[in-house]
Structures are given as structure tokens and as C-alpha cells.
């Protein structure tokens, strides 16, 4: 079965299909860290600017009042070294410059910017702001 030439052409039928053959008989199992399977995920990223104007609350309403540690995790209010919650949600464009270039959003303390950026990076589906984050950063 190996080494058969798969035919080009989308949508081959069963019995007439094959993977791209390895041209050499030398096979590399690869480094443990490199991935050999990439799965296509749903995308909204490129269109997001055209379809929505979005905001990310930092932190989300579930965690109102909590502070944000440098690594982006939530900690008790007043924790030393942690950043206070932001009074207003960040606009999509502000988040983009914060994540890409470390630009501190207007009216926020530059020393806290890293904590806010890390909080946003840790957002998961279902959390407030996730759709916005996902739309700003191709994954």
C-alpha cells in the first residue's frame, strides 16, 4: 500500500486514494515537540474587523473585583504586585496593539500592561471576551 502514487484531484473515491508518498525510503519520525497533524479550526479572525466591533472586559464579569497577577491569573483584591481590574473594557484595536506591540491602553498603568495582556491570552471559549480575542488573533 505504501509508495503508491496518490492521484491529484479533490475528492477521490475509495480505492483510488492515497497519501502523499514519502519519496525516500528514509523515514524521519521527527522531534517530539514538532507536530505532524494539524487540524483545521473554525475561523473568524480575518473577517472579524468587518463583522463586529468588539470589547474585552478585564477581568470578565464572573470575576468582577478580582486583581490580575503578572501571569494573567486571577487573585484576591489588593494582592501585592497584582494589577487592579480595569474600569472599562478594552476595545478590539487596543487589545491588538497591546498583544502585538505591548502598547499600553490609554489611561492604564504601563507596569500592569503585561498582566492584562496575559489575562487576555488565557481567555477560553465561553468566557466573556473570548470571541473578541479569538477574532483578533489568528490561532
Amino acid at each position: 500500500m505504501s509508495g503508491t502514487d496518490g492521484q491529484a484531484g479533490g475528492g477521490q473515491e475509495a480505492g483510488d486514494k492515497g497519501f502523499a508518498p514519502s519519496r525516500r525510503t528514509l523515514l524521519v519520525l521527527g522531534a517530539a515537540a514538532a507536530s505532524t497533524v494539524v487540524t483545521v479550526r473554525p475561523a473568524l479572525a480575518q473577517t472579524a474587523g468587518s463583522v463586529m466591533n468588539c470589547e474585552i472586559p478585564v477581568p470578565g464579569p464572573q470575576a468582577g473585583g478580582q486583581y490580575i497577577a503578572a501571569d494573567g491569573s486571577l487573585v484576591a483584591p489588593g494582592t501585592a504586585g497584582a494589577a487592579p481590574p480595569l474600569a472599562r473594557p478594552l476595545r478590539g484595536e487596543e487589545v491588538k496593539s497591546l498583544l502585538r506591540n505591548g502598547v499600553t491602553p490609554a489611561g492604564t498603568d504601563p507596569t500592569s500592561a503585561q498582566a492584562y495582556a496575559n489575562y487576555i491570552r488565557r481567555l477560553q471559549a465561553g468566557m466573556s471576551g473570548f470571541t473578541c480575542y479569538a477574532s483578533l488573533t489568528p490561532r
Partner: protein
Amino acid sequence: MRHRLDIQIGPVAFRIGSAWKAPLDALGRLYAAYPKPADGLADFTVRLEPEKPWRRWLRPSVAIKGDYILPDAAPLALAHGLLAAEMGMNLQMALGQKNYLLLHAATVEKDGRVLIMTGESGAGKSTLAALLGERGWRLMGDEFGLLDMDTGALMPFPRAVSLKNGAIRVMEAEVGADRFGPRLEDTPKGAIRHMRPNDRAIAGMGQGGMPSLLLFPRFGPAEAVRGVGKAEIFMRLTQASTNYVSLGRRGFDALARLVETVPALAIDYPDTDTAVGLVEAFWRERAA
């Protein structure tokens, strides 16, 4: 809803409802030359609503709603209501369109064949397509290319071109004032001005064509051209499509066929005139 406007763009009919008159007046002027849906029906409904009931009058803010909605979407100022309507229509396409494989791409046609330009927002594909549309090509769309999964043809979706910041001046130098919407200052994306495609683009909005060349344009410091591997093209196109995953096998077959049959190049360009020159040169080469 208090106010209503129906618009047909390419194969898609929209019904737009609004709590305010102004956004629909602006939209109606911009789309005055477009036909109304012949059957009076809509593929998608867009609603422009006050975020809270009192926000209809008090510091009015426009929430973008409709058949399909996204969480985290922030409202826009009423002065940007036209932009809200445009975003609402794009949102319905991005989330609800399943009759075509949707590519986030600008498309133009010449001699019955289609050039597809795709890339991240800000790559300049809108401006490039708009410019080509005034220089001998037919503009098919600046935002979404609709790939017919049965025939492999690209269908037009020539909505008003959304020009941002510097691109506004480029097109103002090219096109008469009667084809522009109002200039919207200080939107979340900076200054925006919408431009109505020309009569040829609107008259041809039912006419598709077979894809013939795929370009990934990007603003860059210097002119540069690179080949792109087929697998990378496939991956980039899946990430440029909001509905690829949900279309299943049909989407896979259609996209694989596109990638296998259509040549592709990535181009960097320092200014739009260089880009137009590059496009024309590659087009002649491919056509030869």
C-alpha cells in the same frame, strides 16, 4: 422595527430593520442603484437596535443584531449607524451563509476569468480591488468571494467598498464624489468612507467566473514576489473562510480543487500603483 430597507447584493437579499431613520437613509443613498429583491424576500435579516431601551434617545448607541449574532460585539455610536448596518450584513454572511464557500477575499474579473486577492485585514486588498475596478477590470467584491461548490465558479458580492484612512484619498482621486457615502470619523477602525462600485459592477452582479489566479498581497517596504506552497495555500484559505469547517465534504472538495488548479503568488508592494503593475504583469503571464 420602525424602519426597513431591502437590498439585493449579488445572490443575497437583505432585510434591514432599524430603530432609527438616519442609518437606513444613509444606506439607501449608498445602495440607490442596486435592485430590490425581486421576490420581496430576504436571505438574512439585520436589526439595528438600541442597546437598552432608553439608549434610543439618550446617548444613542446602535447594537448590531439579526438572524445571527456574536457575543462580545460592542455597540457603535448612532453617527456610525451606516457602518453598523454594513457590519450587520457582513456578520450575517460570515455566520449564516452556507450556500457558497465563503472566502474573505477581494475579487475582480477580466475576460470571464477571476482574480482572487486574500490576506489579513489591512493588507490593502479592498483598495487594490477598487482601483482595478476603475481600470478595466470588473469589481466583483472587496470583502467576500462566494465559491460555488458545484461548479467551482466565483460569484460576485459587490457591496459598497469600505475604504479606511489613507485609502479614502486614493479613491477620491479616482472616482466622482457622487459615488461616496459620508466620511465617518473616529470609528473603531479610524476614518471610514464607503464607495459605491461602478455601474458595470452592479449590472454584472449576477455573473460569476472561473478563478484563474490567487494573490496574497501585502503592504511591504519593497516590491517582492514569492511562491506559496499548496498546503500552505490550503491552510490560509481555510483561515480566510468563516464557513469552511461547517460545509463538510463539499467544502473540502471545492477548496482542494481550487488550490490544485489555480496558481498562487504572494506579493509585497510599497504603493498601490506598483501593486496594479504587478497584478497586470502576472495576469498577462498566466493568461499567455
